[in-house]
């Protein structure tokens, strides 16, 4: 899409900021981003260029809220959150889902957790999630031509698959 500021260049970054108490979310080109970054006050650092383009959900107008909206549990305001990048409690993540998502998109690889899960009782689920991670790692290692790591990962995957097969056979 075109840059929403100059309407000339191709937009390459998503830019969120608080203007007059409202959260705005814009797609900008590198030139307009540079111009904006110079003009904003220091301390605002959550809209670094993201290489992950074209996959993002637009914030629709009715999702854009007043910056003085507060978390239902700890009374942290949206403005405070935008200024500091800090939430007050776990409920903040439920209170401002769209706004936090816009901020986090610029920081993280993706918006879905991959990795550990606390108190996972089912050992097989744990092994499956470990398998998924190791398969991703194997792909990365091969693309980096890191054959040493790839070989040991392949062995680990094989061992996990064998273990999983055995435990499932046991269950059945």
């Amino acid at each position, binding site marked *: 899409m075109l840059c929403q500021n100059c309407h000339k260049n191709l937009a390459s970054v998503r830019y969120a900021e608080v203007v007059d108490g409202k959260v705005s979310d814009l797609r900008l080109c590198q030139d307009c981003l540079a111009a904006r970054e110079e003009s904003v006050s220091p301390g605002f650092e959550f809209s670094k260029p993201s290489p992950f383009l074209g996959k993002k959900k637009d914030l629709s107008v009715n999702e854009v809220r007043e910056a003085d909206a507060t978390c239902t549990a700890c009374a942290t305001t949206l403005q405070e959150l935008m200024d500091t990048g800090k939430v007050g409690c776990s409920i903040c993540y439920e209170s401002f889902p769209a706004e936090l998502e816009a901020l986090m998109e610029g920081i993280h690889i*993706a918006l879905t957790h991959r990795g550990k899960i606390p108190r996972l009782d089912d050992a097989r689920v744990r092994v499956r999630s470990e398998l998924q991670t190791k398969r991703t790692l194997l792909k990365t*290692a091969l693309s980096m031509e890191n054959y040493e790591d790839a070989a040991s990962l392949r062995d680990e995957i094989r061992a996990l698959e064998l273990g999983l097969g055995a435990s499932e056979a046991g269950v059945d």
Partner: protein
Amino acid sequence: MLETLLEREAQWLSGDGPEADVAVYSLCHLFRNLADFPYPDQCTEDEKRMIEERVLGVLESLNLLASGQYCSFLDLDSREQRFLVERRLVRPEFLQAEGPRGVYISDDQSFTISVNDENHLTFAGIASGLQVQDIWSRMSLIDDTLAGALDYAFSERLGYLTAQIGQVGTGLRANVLLHLPALHLTNLIATATNTAREKRHTLEGMVVPKTLGPSDLRRPKGAALGDLHTLSNDCTLGRSEEETIFHIKHLANEMIKEERESRQQILSEAPLQLEDRVGRALGLARGARLLAFHEASSVLSSLRLGVSSGLLEQFSLHQINDVLITSQNAHIEMKRGHECDELALSAERADLFRSRFA
């Protein structure tokens, strides 16, 4: 309480970890929160006390306190608190936190759990050289054990919930401290910084913590203190812990390789200039009567380069690491038993250098 820490050396200072000629230490932080309290910034004193009691109870029941000690920050004076920061046992931000808080420190000072820092729990593991994988494996086991006894704030979609939105997901921040003097000399440091950024990591010069005093901040703008740079992962959401560790390890290895190649290039193309730099540093270490911390760290950088290039066989990385840590302000003040002014600190530091590099 801290006297035993002062006498006992931290394990990572040994300088015997893998790739220790470039990687000084690896340090991982893991952030966790309890589900039923707001984050420490929003907690009342009573709530913080309840959190501390709950965590201490669990540490005791798991018998962790047998192999370490818990220091309440309320019992420590400013000098002792800064001492813990300088040892990398707590994050510098912990000094600014308020109210009931403290840190569990393992006997070998390789593992700590801070309570009521920015998050309810901050695990920290440190080891010599490039050992992010080992640190993570050990830390993850302790995390699992605690997860069985504490109810963590967790969302299926966003993972572990944290006070900063930049830590949510795995809550794992891995750091490797790299000594990169040759990349500075060959002007490749900017390239390395850009490479890190492209791969969603940050490579930044080690900064002087505010605790070290104003005079130590007088150094060329943008110059890394002692050519030391921290490499850390930017993203915690969307990549699993194992992937995070894999990527930072790979990137650190790339930088270590480049630093070694640059050192080799300098050794073969300008051996005299390198010997001169190392020799001058040794002259300062042996002759200076006053050494500010920023100057001391630059002397140590040259000596470290001398040791790892084989030019200074009489000294070891262990010795360099030890002096780097013990020449910091709070360490000097702990040894002296009271707070010191700038002049006294510089004089004590110079004495330390003279005796250690005689």
